[in-house]
């Protein structure tokens, strides 16, 4: 896959420079451009939300920095964790006196560095709570759910916790909103093609012209199984079956549904997937509270898609429906 870039080493800082130039009213950064924050941060008296992770997943992670969602984001190189240092700088800049909630994906480097950052933040008397996103059912069986990786489901956590914080929730309430959203959220994806990390220069994996990888992660981590490419309906059924078996919603329940494109898969195909997901839920007597179809968590130019379901009760529904505004995500 061909890429539009200058020097691979400049990929992330140049991307960030463009981002800040495009959205000067909404985004700013600390001394280090890898530390992106809301332009109006710190928002005094509000619990702040921070995330972080590698680049290459836009809108994840920094794309959700904005009103009603996150206050800051530590940005790593492509698919690489940012440093504890950067996380600390974001933490200090966004703290509005009510503490900071970290919400990020369950990846080794991120966990280790956010843990270090939280330790260091405590020296500055900033209270930090951590919520780990582990929504990918394909990455481990239910008995080992703690080992699962975090993928597109994190967006629902950002949305619900961000709404709670905007409504004046305490740090415990905000963290609880994120935890509750995640307890009700499951994701599964399928990949059809690899992507290329600029500095590596070659694809993260290879896959046959007629193959797909069921349950692939958003960095090209292999999934559960490699199979022959199937039809949209079959693929959708595969993902939905795995998610529903894990989430176990009941007839009469209401779900938020996200059909997320990994990069190269066009929106047209995402709507074909959504159609089947919607029909499968209807057959089980399950309603759709809100549908999100588009690119929410990507892997550069990987082809493929994921489905995320979140069971919503009235509280989660209200948090999900609350307005938000970032350069990548607007909800009225």
């Amino acid at each position, binding site marked *: 896959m061909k890429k539009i870039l200058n020097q691979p080493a400049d990929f992330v800082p140049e991307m960030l420079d463009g981002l800040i130039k495009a959205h000067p009213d909404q985004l700013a950064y600390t001394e280090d451009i890898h530390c992106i924050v809301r332009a109006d941060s710190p928002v005094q008296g509000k619990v702040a939300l921070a995330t972080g992770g590698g680049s290459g997943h836009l809108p994840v992670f920094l794309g959700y920095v904005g009103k009603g969602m996150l206050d800051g984001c530590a940005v790593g190189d492509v698919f690489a964790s940012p440093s504890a240092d950067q996380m600390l700088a974001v933490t200090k800049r966004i703290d509005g006196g009510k503490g900071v909630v970290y919400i990020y994906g369950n990846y080794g480097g991120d966990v280790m560095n956010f843990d270090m950052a939280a330790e260091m933040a405590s020296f500055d008397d900033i209270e930090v709570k951590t919520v780990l996103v582990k929504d990918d059912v394909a990455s*481990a069986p239910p008995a080992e759910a703690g080992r699962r990786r975090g993928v597109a489901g994190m967006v629902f956590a950002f949305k619900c916790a961000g709404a709670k914080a905007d409504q004046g929730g305490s740090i415990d309430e905000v963290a609880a909103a994120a935890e509750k959203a995640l307890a009700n959220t499951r994701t599964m994806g399928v990949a059809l093609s690899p992507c290329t990390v600029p500095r590596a220069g070659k694809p993260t994996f290879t896959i046959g012209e007629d193959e797909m990888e069921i349950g692939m992660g958003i960095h090209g981590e292999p999934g559960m199984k490699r199979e022959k490419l199937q039809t949209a309906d079959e693929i959708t059924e595969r993902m939905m079956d795995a998610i529903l078996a894990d989430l176990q919603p009941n007839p009469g329940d209401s779900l938020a549904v996200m059909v997320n494109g990994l990069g190269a898969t066009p929106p047209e195909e995402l709507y074909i997937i959504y159609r089947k997901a919607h029909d499968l839920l209807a057959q089980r007597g399950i309603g759709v509270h809100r549908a999100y179809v588009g690119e929410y968590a990507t892997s550069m130019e990987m082809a493929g898609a994921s489905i995320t379901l979140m069971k919503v009760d009235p509280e989660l529904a209200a948090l999900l429906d609350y307005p938000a505004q970032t350069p990548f995500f607007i909800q009225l």
Partner: protein
Amino acid sequence: MGETVSSEAIVAGVRKVGVTLVAQEEYLTSLDQQMGDGDLGITLSKIGGALVEFADSTPVDGDLGKWLGKAGMAANKAGSSSFGTLLATALMRGGKVVSGKSELTPEDLAAMFAAADAGVQERGKAQLGDKTVVDALHPAAEAFAAAISAGESLAAAGQAALAAARAGRDRVTPLRSKIGRASWVGERTEGKVDAGCEALVVMLEAVV
């Protein structure tokens, strides 16, 4: 025995590790691509470059402990993947136990090795047998300490550590990865060498 290691030798050793990590970028990336996300070589090459720059520009000023701690912070800034963060942690923890010293005894080196091992386990929470760098690092630290206790030369202790690291790496190769990205690859990791173990071996080869 009166063998000691000077500040200059430590600085040179860190620099050598840095140079090696830069040189091995492609090799380590290719290993990580087989069961991880393919960033290990990139991360370690960035860290390697940072260590070389750090070694070239930062005087020890009589405190090797502080210097190693700062080297760890520079490493973390340069590359913060799992392995990169563990390497930074190892440098910081290793530095802590030799705080204030300007030259090191073999026992100091053994204590540093042990502290690095403990730090990595604490930070990464991996168990022996999970198929991570711990499976090479822990036996290497133990072998080094044992050789020093037995009064062997530094060179011999280094060889013992390297041999133990290689043996540890090979012991877990048939196993399935249980932690980190590789754990998601499941059974397909069986029979493939752990990239982190190999990275440790590569670093040790550079200095022993």
